[in-house]
């Protein structure tokens, strides 16, 4: 019955309801798909972080992070990642202004920032491994601490790596004049997401 009523009322005023053909979100399918992908990817990290919270709450003790991590270096890594997000936003803004040259420069800068972050991450891992941290073993207390550290930062790092590759491709395409504003923006969404994930990992794992 509802259907019938709906059909006739809608046909009486055909523009009253949205008529299809475009998205209710008023975004292109590329952007929508990237957003939905980011939701699933965010929930993957949520799964890791929730597990980390679970195990940490269920553990009788947890290491003092200040004694484990060189806080200055972690802070510098965070700064680098945030700065790369700012350059990425600038690149997206330039792409929207059809200023492809500026967009290319800033995308390349962003990729450089990502590389710098990865480099710092790698040295951090090397230091901790040298001090005896393993997936199976943690010199500062409960074993899951090291396991979660390597898993979560490893997964975030792999996302950064994928982002760097993606941005390099985008920069090359911009150089050849083949990239679209949409392409830069979608790549930008991914890069900011990587930064957002770090915004959660940094306080939840390193600070608290």
């Amino acid at each position, binding site marked *: 019955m509802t259907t019938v009523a709906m059909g006739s009322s809608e046909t009486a005023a055909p523009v009253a309801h949205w008529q299809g053909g475009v998205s209710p979100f008023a975004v292109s399918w590329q952007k929508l798909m990237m957003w939905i992908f980011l939701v699933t990817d965010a929930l993957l990290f949520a799964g890791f972080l929730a597990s980390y919270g679970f195990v940490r709450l269920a553990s009788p003790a947890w290491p003092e992070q200040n004694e484990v991590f060189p806080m200055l270096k972690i802070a510098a890594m965070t700064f680098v990642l945030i700065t790369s997000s700012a350059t990425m936003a600038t690149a997206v803004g330039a792409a929207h202004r059809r200023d492809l040259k500026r967009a290319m420069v800033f995308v390349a800068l962003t990729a450089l920032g990502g590389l710098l972050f990865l480099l710092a991450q790698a040295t951090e891992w090397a230091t901790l491994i040298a001090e005896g941290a393993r997936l199976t073993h943690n010199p500062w207390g409960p074993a899951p601490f090291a396991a979660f550290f390597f898993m979560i930062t490893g997964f975030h790092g792999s996302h950064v790596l994928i982002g760097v590759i993606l941005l390099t491709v985008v920069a090359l395409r911009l150089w050849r004049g083949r990239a679209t504003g949409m392409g830069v923006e979608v790549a930008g969404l991914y890069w900011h997401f990587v930064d957002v994930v770090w915004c959660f990992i940094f*306080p939840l794992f390193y600070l608290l």
Partner: protein
Amino acid sequence: MERITPYRTYWLVWIVLLALTLSMIVAEGAPLARGLVVSFILLAMLLKVTMIGAWYMHLRLERAALILSVVLATFVTAAALFFLLVPEAISLPQAGP
């Protein structure tokens, strides 16, 4: 996206983000009540994420439907997962104080 964000805005946001990060690190070492420190850090974290989402990911310029779908879907799901795990974790026999 119809409106164009001025470049300056991105870099203003950048300054705020850096300041927030710095304040989190300072707060962690500050001689304050633990609960206060934790709440401040979590708040600053959420603020940072909101700023990146709103200005850098341009959610500010999108329709409310998209913002609500993306943000609510992610946060409600993650919160459901986490907060239904917490009572389990703290009732396990090996759990600490």
